């Protein structure tokens, strides 16, 4: 093992999977071996059993569906508005000077702290859930996208000017494509955070969703169900992340070169 030396793809997968195995093994030893009380932590086997029960008999699939659509819906709205604004801010400095201070301030406002207000304004329906995700992701997206666009290599912009590009051409044909891989990477990262916000929103006021199931299970001290719910979130996060990564690699092959 030497610094920065790459591993083979096979070894990479084997190493990644082995930590999951280790994690479950330690968990199983502690719970099945009787070192931890069942009241506080369910063992993996019980967890899988009640997970199956949840999915087959208690309509947990519907909860998962609700949560997924909330995340994607809220995130899509945030992204649709944040990408154009971020690009404008990155490209045009007066626009940046106008929005940047407020956006920087707003991104430190914790989305979860807005939940009581949002319940007051929007009730406990879907609008409230989407709003929480929007507040949590929009401002972060705007700032990071503006920075990516603003960091475009100046010499590429100059080269485009000497090739006769006008300002619009610079934005559309230089700044945007140059920043696109980083924008996609930002979207991937913030989508991960959106998963956290949706669960928080569902924990506080909801009648469906993974978060709602978790609060219900808390009343019954059903740690097996809570853990199953958390793991489902983790699996969905991992799958969307891998899908996003694969998509980015496919869309921007040039950005992978020379890494």
């Amino acid at each position: 093992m030497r610094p920065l030396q790459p591993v083979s793809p096979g070894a990479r997968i084997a190493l990644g999977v082995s930590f999951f195995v280790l994690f479950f093994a330690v968990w199983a030893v502690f719970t099945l071996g009787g070192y931890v009380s069942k009241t506080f932590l369910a063992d993996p086997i019980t967890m899988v059993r009640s997970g199956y029960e949840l999915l087959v008999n208690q309509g947990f699939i519907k909860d998962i569906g609700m949560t997924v659509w909330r995340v994607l819906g809220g995130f899509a709205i945030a992204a649709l508005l944040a990408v154009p604004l971020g690009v404008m801010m990155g490209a045009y400095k007066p626009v940046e000077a106008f929005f940047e201070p407020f956006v920087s301030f707003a991104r430190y406002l914790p989305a979860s702290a807005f939940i009581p207000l949002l319940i007051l304004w929007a009730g406990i329906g879907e609008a409230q859930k989407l709003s929480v995700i929007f507040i949590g992701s929009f401002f972060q997206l705007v700032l990071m996208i503006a920075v990516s666009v603003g960091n475009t290599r100046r010499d590429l912009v100059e080269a485009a000017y000497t090739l006769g590009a006008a300002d619009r051409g610079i934005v559309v044909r230089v700044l945007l494509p140059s920043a696109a891989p980083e924008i996609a990477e930002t979207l991937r990262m913030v989508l991960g955070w959106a998963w956290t916000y949706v669960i928080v929103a569902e924990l506080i006021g909801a009648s469906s969703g993974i978060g709602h199931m978790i609060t219900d299970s808390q009343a019954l001290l059903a740690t097996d169900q809570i853990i199953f719910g958390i793991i489902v979130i983790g699996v969905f996060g991992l799958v969307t992340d891998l899908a996003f990564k694969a998509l980015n690699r496919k869309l921007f092959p040039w950005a992978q070169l020379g890494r």
Partner: protein
Amino acid sequence: MTSSSPPILTVTQLSKTFAATKGPGTVALQATDLAVAENDFITILGPSGCGKSTLLRMVAGLDTPSSGSIVLDGKPIAGPGADRGMVFQSYTLFPWLSILQNVCFGLREKGLALDAQLDIAHQFIKKVGLQGFENHFPKQLSGGMQQRTALARALANNPRILLMDEPFGALDHQTRELMQELLQGIWEAEQKTVLFVTHDIDEAIFMGSRVVVMSARPGRIKCDVAVPLAHPRHYSVKTTPVFTELKARLTEEIRVEVHRAAGLQAPAA
């Protein structure tokens, strides 16, 4: 070799001072005059920091002069434009575009139909010897090949004047000589007006029909020397007496400037 045709580019009393946060600022270029005739190949030779790149960037419209004027074809320059193509020292191909798309960039910006774009692009890719690499990304090419693409991209736009800012400065010695011959050949065939900035004396003589020598900070034109070497120039001219005499003279001119820039006493001749 004084050209009788009227100049297409006229630089008059051009100067550039970069503002400093405190104090009077840095004078990069003192009032400078330069006239460039059609199809002339002028090399601008000087030590680093003599303002030669600043001069070129102002002609390109990328920097604004502090005073003076630049007139191309009777029209004052007010910003960058497709009539002044540029090849930079750094690799400035768009990394997200293929070689072919890079060469098409300016043509597409002009609004040419795709067929016409591809037609012109293929011609110039052939001229710089990069057939077969049309669909490669810039990062898959060597430095010399990337600069050849940059040259094709600038030429495809058919600019009135081609500006080259130490285009081969980042290349190894052998590749650089190859590029010099390639550019020499293209210039002889295409008849372009070229302003070529370099700090390499051999390159300045081999490439130029005129060598403009600049003094160290603050930059100004020190002398303007015609290169009496016939075209087509073969690589072997670098060993002829005419070449070596001129090289000896320019070496002396530059040496004084380098010493001055370094704050040293002028060396005894």
